[in-house]
């Protein structure tokens, strides 16, 4: 017997309990359990086909879970049709009604609630001010730019004061410049109105900018949940390490366990690795080691440390303004990616192509886990 009521506003404002969705033999979502707190911006991050959109659609009510439960603010929504759920969704295509102007699009949801004419007009006006679309209220959707449509869609979803707002790839249809700007606007609106957001995206930069927490999905399963920093710096699996940001992935075996961490042997590196951070390592099995390019430093003289170094020859240098990206080929033939920050002009010059360099990193830089 489970009690239907629970404490509202806690860490379990939105609860997914062992939610699965199968389409025939295909498992789109595989036993996902997740709690989201009130006021969070939670991002579901994953490649296409990872099940993130199906999970969002189950929250919205467009798909019924094959098993498991969906709860919001203590209410079991699993069998509630979409039109009775106290949440709203912003669609990837925005799905604005082409035969209605901006004001009528936004008013649609309020009219379904049978609110009074004056009340509707007031609330539509308010929300259009929030998204700064008040002046274009008489326009039809096809007369708006992509960014303007996005704001109308946001207003239409927010005007009903939902307990939860679902956003499906909210910025995917915008060009790069506008997208960056809109990310911060979204955060702004969210903080102004205090609505809980669940955002689906395949864009990790977008997820990291927006989210208070990120859930990484792969093959229908939620593989890691954490802040952007946690996911980037302490990936729980090889998939997460590889998926988020750029990374050098190595294979290694445990040589020794010491007080300061694991000493690993990697065939492609001349020196052993000392790794402080491990994700669920128990036996001497084969481990993956993730080393971020920006954690590696380069020097022309040999580092004075027994662990965590290598030497090689610079193969490529790409100047990208804020950073330079180098490919360094080690003696073993393996190439490692190294990012150097171009902090100030006149810094020690970036090593040139074909120059021999030493690579080194701190023992808290790399992360290892069971393969």
């Amino acid at each position: 017997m489970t009690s239907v009521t629970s404490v509202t506003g806690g860490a379990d404002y939105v609860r997914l309990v062992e939610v699965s969705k199968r389409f025939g033999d295909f498992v789109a979502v595989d036993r996902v359990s997740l709690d989201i707190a009130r006021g969070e911006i939670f991002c579901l991050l994953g490649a296409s086909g990872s099940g993130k959109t199906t999970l969002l659609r189950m929250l919205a009510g467009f798909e019924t879970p094959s098993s498991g439960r969906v709860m919001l603010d203590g209410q079991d929504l699993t069998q509630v049709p979409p039109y009775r759920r106290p949440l709203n969704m912003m669609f990837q295509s925005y799905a604005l009604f082409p035969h209605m102007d901006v004001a009528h699009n936004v008013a649609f949801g309020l009219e379904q609630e049978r609110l009074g004419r004056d009340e509707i007009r007031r609330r539509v006006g308010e929300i259009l001010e929030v998204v700064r679309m008040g002046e274009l209220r008489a326009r039809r959707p096809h007369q708006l730019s992509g960014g303007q449509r996005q704001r109308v869609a946001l207003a239409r979803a927010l005007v009903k004061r939902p307990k939860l707002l679902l956003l499906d790839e909210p910025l995917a249809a915008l060009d790069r410049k506008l997208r960056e700007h809109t990310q911060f606007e979204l955060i702004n609106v969210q903080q102004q109105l205090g609505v809980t957001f669940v955002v689906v995206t395949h864009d990790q930069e977008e997820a990291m900018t927006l989210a208070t927490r990120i859930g990484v999905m792969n093959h229908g399963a939620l593989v890691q949940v954490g802040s952007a920093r946690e996911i980037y710096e302490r990936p729980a699996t090889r998939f997460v390490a590889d998926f988020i940001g750029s990374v050098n992935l190595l294979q290694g075996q445990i040589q020794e366990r010491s007080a300061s961490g694991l000493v690993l042997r990697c065939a492609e590196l001349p020196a052993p690795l000392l790794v402080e951070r491990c994700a669920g390592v128990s036996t001497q099995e084969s481990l993956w080691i993730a080393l971020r390019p920006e954690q590696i430093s380069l020097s022309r003289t040999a580092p004075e440390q027994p662990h965590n170094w290598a030497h090689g020859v610079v193969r490529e240098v790409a100047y990208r303004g804020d950073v330079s990206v180098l490919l360094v080929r080690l003696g073993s033939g393996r190439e490692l990616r190294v990012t150097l920050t171009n902090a100030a002009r006149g810094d020690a010059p970036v090593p040139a192509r074909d120059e021999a360099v030493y690579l080194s990193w701190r023992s808290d830089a790399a992360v290892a886990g069971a393969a």
Partner: protein
Amino acid sequence: MSAQTPHAPHAPQVPQVPQVPPARASRALVAGVPMLWLSVFFLIPLVIVLKISLSEARLAMPPYTPLVEWVRGQGASLHAHLDNYRLLFSDPLYADSLLYSLRVAAGSTVCCLLLGYPMALAIARAVPERRHLLLMAIILPFWTSFLLRVYAWIGLLQDDGVINHVLLALHLTHRPLRMVNTTFAVYLGIVYSYLPFMVLPLYANLEKHDAALLEAAADLGARPWQRFRRITLPLSVPGIIAGVLLVFIPAVGEFVIPSLLGPASQLMIGRVISTEFFENRDWPVASALALLLLALLLAPILILQRYRGRELSA
């Protein structure tokens, strides 16, 4: 969010390439061929009919007086009469049959819409593999001769026809129902024959609707019926207009169905025109009647075209 984005999202900058003659020539060809077709097969015959409608009937070949007569030494003299049109308005036969035709056509169009809309919607919402099959089922009757299908209805509807046999056998009636040669049979024949012309344009419209719009409406609190009323129905208005025109216009002038299935006492306008032409050999009156009918039918088309134009530009 900034309001400084008044420009269109992705206005493609078309490079200003000087117009090359071949493109213009091919464009002229593309527009020219249908124009030529329409002139030869529509405009010129129309002018001929107009000419005949202004002349007088006579027992000769052709059976009407020439409009322009060349008299040696005096030049041309015009002999235009409006008597034919005057007759149309003075003899109640024409007004009667015209009103009857409009009533039958309007009633059949409404029946076609009420039957055809759910069919078109069901096909549009069916899984893609099923759609072709269902569309085929709509189109398939066209593969049989139209005349043959109308004759088949006589067999079904007549006093000792299939339907009456079944009704009698089931003791639903103790006397055969009189169905053939009634207005009911005309309605039935027209609705049956013209239903595909309603379903196909409606399907073409409904099939294009973005399913996300209905999901958005559901998400905003609209139940199924409200989603239909507020989203699907208004967005399908162009399809409804196309279907209504395709059924209504030919139904008004329908000749075969009322001749075979309809009552002998009440004539539809198509039948009257045919009688004037072939039985009375009064080509001028028949022409005038045909033109009057055309003018009457043109009015609703033009009104609807304007409505559609406004919809598009709004």
